[in-house]
C-alpha cells in the first residue's frame, strides 16, 4: 500500500505547482479583465456571444487604437456551464491566479449570485453582469448590467395603463426568481394604478406543455397577457394560443424574452406580439453607435451575425473602457469605481445618455416594440424609470 501513498503524494505536489498571482491586474502595458460564463450548457450561445464576440469586439477596437492610456486590455474567460460551484471556482481563479483587475459581463442569476459575497469581500469590481434580479443593486463594488426586472415591470405597466389605457391584465410566468420578481412588481405597479392581475399562471422551468395554463388564462379574459418566460416555453405559449384561436388579448413579452431567437422559434405565431426591448435592433438600427458596432463586427468577426447578446457585451466593454480612460494612467479599482460614478450624460450612441447614480444601475430603460413580419418594429422612443 505504501506505493499508493507515495503516488498520491507525488501527484499532490505536482498539482500544487501553479504560478503565483500577479498584482491587481494592471501592469505597465496591460489591463486584465475577465469572467466566468456559459460556454457549455443551456446558455452557451448567449455566453459566447457576450464575451468573445461582444466584450472582445470592443476591446479589439480599443487595443488597435493604442489601448487605454497606453495599456492593452486582455480578457480571460472560463466556462462554468451555468453551474454555480464552477462559477465560484472560476471567479476565485480569475482573482487569485490570473489577478484580474475587474470581473466583466458574467451571466445568469445563479452563477453570478454565487460569487457576489466573495467579490465584495475581496473588493473586486463586478461590472455589468448579464442578469436582471435586483439583488445586485446598490452594492459598493457592483454595477448592474441589464435593466433590472423591477424597473422593467414599472416601465411596462406605466406605458400600458398610462398611454394605451388597458385595465385588465394577466400573466404567465416562469416559476423562479426571474418570473416571480416580475409577478411581484406587476402586482405592486398595478396596485399603484388601482388595478390587479386577473390571472397569474406559472410554468416550471424546462416544461414544454403550456396548454393548461393558456386555457386558464383565456377563461379570465384579460386585455393584456404578459409572457415572463424563456424563448422555448414562450414560443409554445404563442403557438398554443394560435391553436385554440384566442385572439382578443394582447401578448406582451418581458425584456429578456424580446430577442431574435424567440421570434425564430415562434415563427408566424409571434406576429402582433408586443414587448419591451432593452436594445436597439442589432441588424437594422441606424443609431451611430449601432452602425459602428456592425462595422466593427464586419471587420473583426465577419462570420458572426450581429445580435443583442454580443451587443450587450460590446456595450459593457465600452462602459468599462470609458471609465478606465477617465480614471487616468494611475488605474486603481477605487479609481475605476469613482470614474463610473462620475459618468453623467455619457453618449454611447446605442442607449440614451447614461448617468450612474448611487444605485449603480447602468440601464433604466427600454422601448416598446411590436412584431411585424418577423421583426421587432419600434412603437415608442425610450421609456425610462427613475
Amino acid at each position, binding site marked *: 500500500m505504501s506505493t499508493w501513498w507515495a503516488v498520491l*503524494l507525488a501527484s499532490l505536489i505536482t*498539482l*500544487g505547482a501553479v504560478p503565483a498571482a500577479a498584482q491587481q491586474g494592471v501592469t505597465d502595458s496591460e489591463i486584465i479583465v475577465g469572467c466566468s460564463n456559459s460556454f457549455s450548457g443551456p446558455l452557451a450561445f448567449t455566453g459566447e456571444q457576450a464575451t468573445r464576440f461582444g466584450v472582445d469586439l470592443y476591446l479589439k477596437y480599443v487595443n488597435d487604437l493604442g489601448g487605454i492610456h497606453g495599456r492593452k486590455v486582455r480578457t480571460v474567460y472560463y466556462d462554468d456551464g451555468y453551474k454555480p460551484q464552477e462559477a*465560484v471556482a472560476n471567479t476565485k*481563479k480569475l482573482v487569485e491566479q490570473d489577478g484580474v483587475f475587474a470581473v466583466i459581463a458574467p451571466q445568469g442569476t445563479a452563477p453570478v449570485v*454565487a460569487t457576489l459575497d466573495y467579490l465584495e469581500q475581496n473588493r473586486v469590481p463586478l461590472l455589468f453582469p448579464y442578469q436582471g434580479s435586483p439583488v445586485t443593486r446598490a452594492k459598493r463594488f457592483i454595477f448592474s448590467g441589464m435593466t433590472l426586472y423591477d424597473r422593467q415591470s414599472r416601465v411596462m405597466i406605466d406605458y400600458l395603463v398610462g398611454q394605451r389605457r388597458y385595465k385588465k391584465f394577466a400573466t404567465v410566468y416562469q*416559476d423562479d426568481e426571474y418570473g416571480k420578481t416580475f409577478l411581484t412588481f406587476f402586482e405592486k405597479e398595478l396596485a399603484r394604478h388601482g388595478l390587479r392581475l386577473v390571472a397569474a399562471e406559472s410554468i416550471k422551468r424546462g416544461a414544454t406543455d403550456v396548454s393548461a395554463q393558456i386555457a386558464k388564462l383565456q377563461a379570465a379574459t384579460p386585455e393584456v397577457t404578459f409572457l415572463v418566460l424563456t424563448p422555448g416555453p414562450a414560443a409554445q405559449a404563442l403557438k398554443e394560443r394560435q391553436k385554440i384561436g384566442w385572439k382578443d388579448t394582447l401578448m406582451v413579452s418581458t425584456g429578456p424574452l424580446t430577442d431574435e431567437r424567440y421570434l425564430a422559434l415562434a415563427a408566424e405565431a409571434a406576429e402582433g406580439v408586443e414587448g419591451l426591448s432593452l436594445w436597439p435592433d442589432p441588424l437594422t438600427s441606424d443609431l451611430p453607435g449601432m452602425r459602428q458596432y456592425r462595422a466593427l463586427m464586419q471587420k473583426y468577426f465577419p462570420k458572426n451575425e450581429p445580435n443583442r447578446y454580443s451587443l450587450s457585451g460590446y456595450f459593457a466593454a465600452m462602459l468599462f473602457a470609458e471609465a478606465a480612460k477617465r480614471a487616468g494612467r494611475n488605474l486603481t479599482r477605487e479609481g475605476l469605481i469613482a470614474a463610473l460614478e462620475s459618468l453623467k450624460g455619457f453618449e454611447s450612441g446605442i442607449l440614451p445618455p447614461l448617468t450612474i447614480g448611487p444605485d449603480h444601475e447602468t440601464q433604466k430603460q427600454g422601448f416598446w416594440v411590436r412584431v411585424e413580419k418577423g421583426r421587432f418594429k419600434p412603437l415608442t422612443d425610450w421609456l425610462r424609470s427613475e
Partner: protein
Amino acid sequence: MRRLALASLGLLLLALPWLVPRYFVFLANLIVVNAIVAIGLNLLSGYTNQLSFGHAGFLAIGAYFAALLTIHAPGVPVPLTILAAGVSTAAVGVALGVPCLRLEGLYLTMATLAFGYVVSEAILNLDWLTRGADGLRVPVAGLGPWRLATDVARYYLVLAVAVLMVLAARNLVSTRTGRAFLAIRESQIAAQAGGIHVAAYKTIAFAVSAFYTGVAGGLFAFVVGYLSPDAFDVFLSVDFVAMIIIGGLGSVPGSIIGAAVITVLHDWLAAFQNYRPLIFGAILIAGMLFMPGGIARALRVSLTRGGGV
C-alpha cells in the same frame, strides 16, 4: 517505509494551504469533497457492481440538508450537521436501494438516473423550503467559538472528515461486509450459494454509498457557499462515474486519484471555453482505452514492472 510515507503525506496535507496559491485551496476542497463521493460511489459500483448515475441527487440531498439545518438551527456544531446530512441521505439511499433490488444492469442505471432528475425537480418544486431555482445562500459553518469563514479553515474541516471517511472505507472493504460486496460483484448466484444475504448487502451498499455522498454534500454546501439545482445536474453524476472509472473501480486510492484528476481537469479545461466538453470527452476515452482498470491499476502495473517500491 510505509509509516514514513504516511507521515510525510500527513504533513504535506496539513501544510498544503501554505504551500500552494490561495486559489488552489478552494480547488483542493472541491477535490476532497469529490473524493468522498467517489469513494462512496466506488463502494456501490466498483465493489458491489451496482452502477449509479444518480449520485448528484444524493449530493444535493446532503447539501440542502446541511444548509437548511444551519439556517434554521445555527447553533448546531458543524460535525453534527455533516453527520446528520450523511444519515438522512443514507435513509434516502435505503429507500432507493430496496426497490432497486429487483433491478440489474441497465435497468438499475436507468432507475438511478431517474432518481437524480427527481431530486433536482423536487428542489425546484419545494421552493418554499429550498428557494427553488433562485438558489440558497449557505451561512458560514460554526464550530464552537470558531467560524469557518475562509477556504483554509474549511480545508481542515474537509480534510479531517475525509481522513475519517477514507479510514472507514479501507476498514469496511477488508471486513466481512466488504468481502460480501466483492462476492456479489463477481457473481450474485455464487454469493447467494455461499451464504451471503444478497438483498441485505446490496441495501447496505446503497446506504453506505448514500451516507458517504450525503457527508460530501454537507461539506459541499459549506465549501461552495451557495446551492442551486443547477449545481446538481446529470452531468455531475456522470463526472462521479468518470472519477471511479478513470481512477479505478474497486479501489479506495483509485477513487481519490480519479476525483483529483477529474476535478483538476474540469478546472483546467474551463479555459478552453466551448471546446471543454469535446476535450474532456476525448481525454476520458483515451484514459479508458490506454488504462483499462483505471489509473490505479495502470500505476500498480508500471510500478511492479519497474521493480518499484
